[in-house]
Each structure stands twice: as C-alpha cells, then as structure tokens.
C-alpha cells in the first residue's frame, strides 16, 4: 500500500519539477505580482529572466522587454515562443489532421499541468509584436517576414480549430450517450456562469483568433514596401474583422487610387495600447447531485451528493478601460478602436466551453468513483479507505482546476490613428494621462513610420522607431 502512496507523491513531485507550468500554483497570482511591479514602475524587475521553452513565459517576458524598449532581447524571447509554435503550425498548415494529443490528455489531467498551448489569438499576436519590434528597430524586411508568418499561422489555426470542434462534438456526444455523464453535464451546465462569454459583443466576433490590428499592420507594412497586391488584402481583412473603423476603408481607397504621401513627408501610423489582457481565475462551484438512481442498479447507495466544478472566470483590467486622447503638433486626435482583446479572450474561452464541460464531467466521474471506493472501504473499517482518500484528494489537485494560464501582458485594447503628409522633421505627441500631459518628440525622416505608446496603470511607455529618433 505504501508503494502506491509513494507512487502518487512521486508523480506529483515529477509534475512540479518537470513542468514550467506548476499545476499547484495559480497563474493569476503570478501575473498579479508582475502587474503590481509594472504599475509601480519597476519594469525591468517585473519578471525574472529564465531560460525555458515554455511559450507563455517567453511571450510574457518578450512583452515586458518590449515595454522596456529592449527590442532585440524581446525578439529573442518571441522567437523562442514561436519555435514551440512552429512544430504545431507545421502540422496544421495544410492539413486538418495535425496534433490534437494534448487536448485529449488534458481531459484526464489538470490543464495547468500540460504544456501550454497558446490560444489562437496569442499565436497571431506573437508574430505581430515580433513585427512591431522589427519596425521599432527600423527593419522593415524582417517585419515583413513576421507579417507573412502571422497569416500562415492563422491558416494553421483555422484548420486546427475545425479539427478541435469536430473532436469536441464527438466528446460531447459520448457524454450525452452515457446516462450518468449526461446527468452530470446537465447539472454542471445549470451552475456554469456564462455571463462574461456570452455577450452580444463576444458573439459578434468573427472568430477568436483573427484580429483587425494584425491585418491592418500587415497592410501598412506591405504598403510601405510598395507591395499593393499584398497590402490591400491586409486592409480588407482588417475591415472584415472590424467593420466599424472608417480608417480602414480609407486605407483601401488609398491603395486602389495609388495615393501615397508626397515627397519629403511621412505617412504616420500611431498605435495606442491600453492596459493588460484579462487574467483568468479558476472558479470553484459546488454542484449538488443525486446519483442514487444509478447506484441503486448496483444495489449500492452513493455517498456522494456534491461535486466540485471548475471553470475559468475572466478578471478584466479595471485601471485602464478607455482610450487616452492625444494631440500631434497641437491637433487633437481621437483614437479609433481596432481590437478589443478582452472580447477575444472571452470568445476563445466560449469556444472551449464544450471541452471545459467534458473535462469537468470526466473529473467528476473519476472523483465519484474514488470517493465512493474510499467511502465503502472506510465503512468496512479498513485502512484502505484512508489511502484512497489521500489518493483522491492528491489526484483531485492534479486533475482539477480550470486553466488560469493566459498571455496577460497583451494590451486590453488597441487603437490606431493615421496622419498623412507630415513634413520630415521633429513633431510632438502629447498624451494627457490623469490630467498630466506627457510629451514625446518624434523625428520623421521616412515615407512611412510608426509610433506606438502604451498606457498601463499610470505608466505611459512610448515605442519609437530607431533611426527616426
């Protein structure tokens, strides 16, 4: 008996050591610590440098380094994140039969314990921020490479999602065919909180993985490189994903009429990012059940009348919720919303709901079986009941809890503006933050340039193109 106890404990220890994502820790707590340090201005110390293949760490740390204007190092970490995605992407680029194994396994263990699989929108954003870093280093050709990678990743994500939906439909069908599992799923659904993920805005999104900003940036980069045949679809796709932004149609019209900035002037893209992406907290709900209708078939009374269900709850950024108006050379501009990352995260979770429910049903079935055995053994007066109880609770820790991992250092919203025919030379951007004007001087010296600023907490961070400052 001691052997089994040791085996369980050893397995738990292996889990803790071998996985960058600790199944017992809360990612929400980890990201809280990082955010508090960023809010207090301790940007370089907000995260510790690590050498890991964990894509989530590499995405978060890459974002932090970008905020700290360390673009080359940021790109190094984004590249590491992309390396782990490349294997996945290659298996889905032109097929609908790639890697789904992790999803199947996560039915049986805590999602937090499996290797992190970046969500669809995160895959697109890694390449987009990688491209933005290259633009800030004034390397347009390398930015072009990342832009191409962005839409290739999207193709892979489309194929993956389709296969995943098919698998989830099959999983759910199996649940429906089993009377006990069907009963459990019905009880779980009654208690599942859909408030965040079923809003009209979430449902209005075309999907959870394509965002208008990435495609608008693609259009801008290809336009700057004088490749209208690739620029136009970038703007068109951005318009399909965000039909309310009038700037997009104007950009398409400019491509169609071959309108470019006059000689000696700059076409400036101004990008405003605010806040951080939602955090995810594993929410525990107690669901009352009555299994005696099925237990009676085995002439055995069930001692289980409650199961614990875990689902992901979104914790939105409450500090930065609205855009900050700014002026350029004393002309005021209202930022135009391009992407609401909050909605994309919600949509992504909504799309995962069948898997989340099926995983909770699997966990409930497992816990019921183990607890019932412990209950029966305990009633018979043996020590087996204690051991099984220990196994059940330790197994529960490993196997339960909603996945809290998510790329939190993405902004919550991205806005853009575009100003044409700005004369080469120095210009001033003024952002008013809580009544305090923050002034940044920019130097324009190329036909196309980009300036990005991010407001997070009470910090404002400008990202300017090297060679133009």
């Amino acid at each position, binding site marked *: 008996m001691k052997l089994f106890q040791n*085996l369980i404990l050893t397995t738990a220890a*292996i*889990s803790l050591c071998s996985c960058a994502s600790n199944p017992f820790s809360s990612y929400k707590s980890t990201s809280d610590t990082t955010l508090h340090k960023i809010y207090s201005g301790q940007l370089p110390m907000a995260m510790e440098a690590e050498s890991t293949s964990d894509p989530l760490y590499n995405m978060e740390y890459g974002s932090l380094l970008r905020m700290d204007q360390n673009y080359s190092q940021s790109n190094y970490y984004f590249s590491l994140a992309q390396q782990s995605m490349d294997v996945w992407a290659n298996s889905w680029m032109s097929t609908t039969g790639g890697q789904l194994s992790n999803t199947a*396994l996560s039915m049986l*263990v805590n999602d937090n314990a499996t290797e992190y699989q970046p969500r669809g929108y995160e895959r697109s954003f890694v390449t987009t921020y990688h491209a933005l870093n290259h633009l800030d280093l004034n390397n347009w050709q390398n930015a072009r490479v990342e832009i191409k990678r962005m839409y290739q990743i999207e*193709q892979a994500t489309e194929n993956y999602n389709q296969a995943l939906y098919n698998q989830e439909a099959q999983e759910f069908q199996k649940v429906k065919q089993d009377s006990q599992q069907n009963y459990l799923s019905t009880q779980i659904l009654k208690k599942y909180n859909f408030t965040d993920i079923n809003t009209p805005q979430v449902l209005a999104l075309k999907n959870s993985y394509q965002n208008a900003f990435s495609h608008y940036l693609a259009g801008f980069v290809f336009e700057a490189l004088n490749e209208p045949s690739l620029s136009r*679809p970038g703007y068109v796709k951005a318009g399909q994903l965000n039909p309310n932004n009038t700037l997009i149609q104007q950009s398409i019209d400019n491509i169609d009429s071959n309108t470019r900035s006059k000689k000696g002037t700059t076409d400036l893209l101004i990008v405003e990012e605010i806040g951080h992406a939602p955090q995810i907290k594993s929410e525990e709900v107690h669901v009352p059940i009555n299994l005696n209708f099925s237990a009676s078939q085995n002439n055995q009374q069930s001692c289980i009348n409650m199961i614990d269900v875990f689902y992901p709850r979104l914790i939105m950024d409450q500090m930065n919720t609205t855009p900050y108006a700014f002026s350029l050379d004393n002309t005021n501009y209202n930022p135009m919303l391009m992407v609401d990352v909050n909605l994309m995260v919600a949509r992504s979770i909504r799309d995962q709901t069948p898997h989340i429910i099926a995983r909770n049903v699997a966990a409930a079935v497992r816990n019921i079986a*183990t607890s019932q055995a412990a209950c029966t053994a305990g009633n018979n007066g043996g020590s087996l009941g204690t051991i099984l109880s220990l196994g059940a609770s330790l197994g529960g820790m490993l196997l339960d809890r909603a996945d809290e991992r998510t790329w939190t250092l993405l902004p919550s919203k991205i806005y853009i503006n575009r100003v044409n025919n700005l004369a080469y030379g120095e210009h001033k951007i003024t952002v008013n933050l809580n009544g305090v004007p923050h002034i940044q001087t920019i130097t324009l010296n190329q036909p196309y340039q980009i300036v990005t600023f991010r407001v997070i907490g009470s910090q404002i961070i400008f990202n300017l193109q090297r060679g133009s400052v």
Partner: protein
Amino acid sequence: MKTKLLQLSLLSATVFLGGCASPTISYVDPNAVNNLTTNFNQNDLRAVAQDMSMQLIQSGKMNKCKSYTISPVKNSTDQYVDTSVMTNAMADKLSNSSAVNSTYVVSTQEMQNQVDELERQNQSGLYDQSTTAKTGKMKGAQCRVDGKLTSDTSVGPDGKTTLVSYTFFVQVFDVQQGAAIWRNSKNISKAKTY
C-alpha cells in the same frame, strides 16, 4: 482500485514525457497540386498566369505591338496573394515564346531599379562616360498588359461547404490609343467541405 491509481500515475507521467519528435526535411515537387485549402496558392498563381499567356500568344495579337510592358497584376481578393508571381510568370512566358516578336520593355515594377542604374552610371562620376548607357534612350512600350485577380466566397446552406471562385482577368491595351486589343478571363473555383 489499485489499478486505477497506477494508471492515473502512469498517465500523469506520460503527459510530461510526450511530444519530443524531431522534424524531417524532404524535397517535394513544386508543381504538385495542393488541394488542402481554398486559398489561391502558388500552383494556382502559376497555372492561371501561364494559361492566360498561352491563350494570348495563340491569339497572335501580341505581334501587333512592337514592344510591350506588363503592369503589376492587381489583387482584389481578400487573400494575401503575391501577384508579382503572376506578373513574372506572364513576362517569362511571353518573352521566351518564339511566336511573340514583340519586345518586352521595363515594367513599372522594374522601373525604379532601371532609374537607379541609369543615375549610377550617369551621375555618380565613377564611370567612363563613353561606356555608359545614356538617359533618354529607353524604348516606350506600344502595348501594356494589364491583369486583375478577383474572388467571391459563398457558404453552403449547411454552413459546412465554402466555395471560393477566383477570376483572373487580362487585357492588352494599345498605350497611345487606349484601345483594348485583347481581353480574356479564366475562372478557378475551389470548395472546402468540413
């Protein structure tokens, strides 16, 4: 029950050990047909450009022009199609055909490099002027080949089938007169069913 716990432990351990396969690299036929997405891919690009070029050659209309250029093919689809591949494929087919007597002259795409080279030879002060190519001597194109790619997407009533129809439209204009001397289009439709 012991078996269950053992399975549970082994399963957890398996999760951490899986997924370490190394990739293999191999050469594939660049002309192999890729039927895996409805996107307009490299095979489609080359196939329609070459097919239209062949039809243009067979029409004999190109020999009405002493010289011609090709404007960059416009992409009016919502897909990232690098239509410079189509423009180049048409230029290759027309200029290498023994049935076309017309001379291919520099296109707008290639113009900047041409200007840069002329300026380098004539304005840098580095060259013996008796050996340089002179400015103002380039041949104007009598005809211009113009192409446009469009697409239309429709989804079946069951929501499971997506049909994308592409049209590649080509015209040849007499530049001075603005008259079209040849027009044709080619359609490709691709369906994807889940």
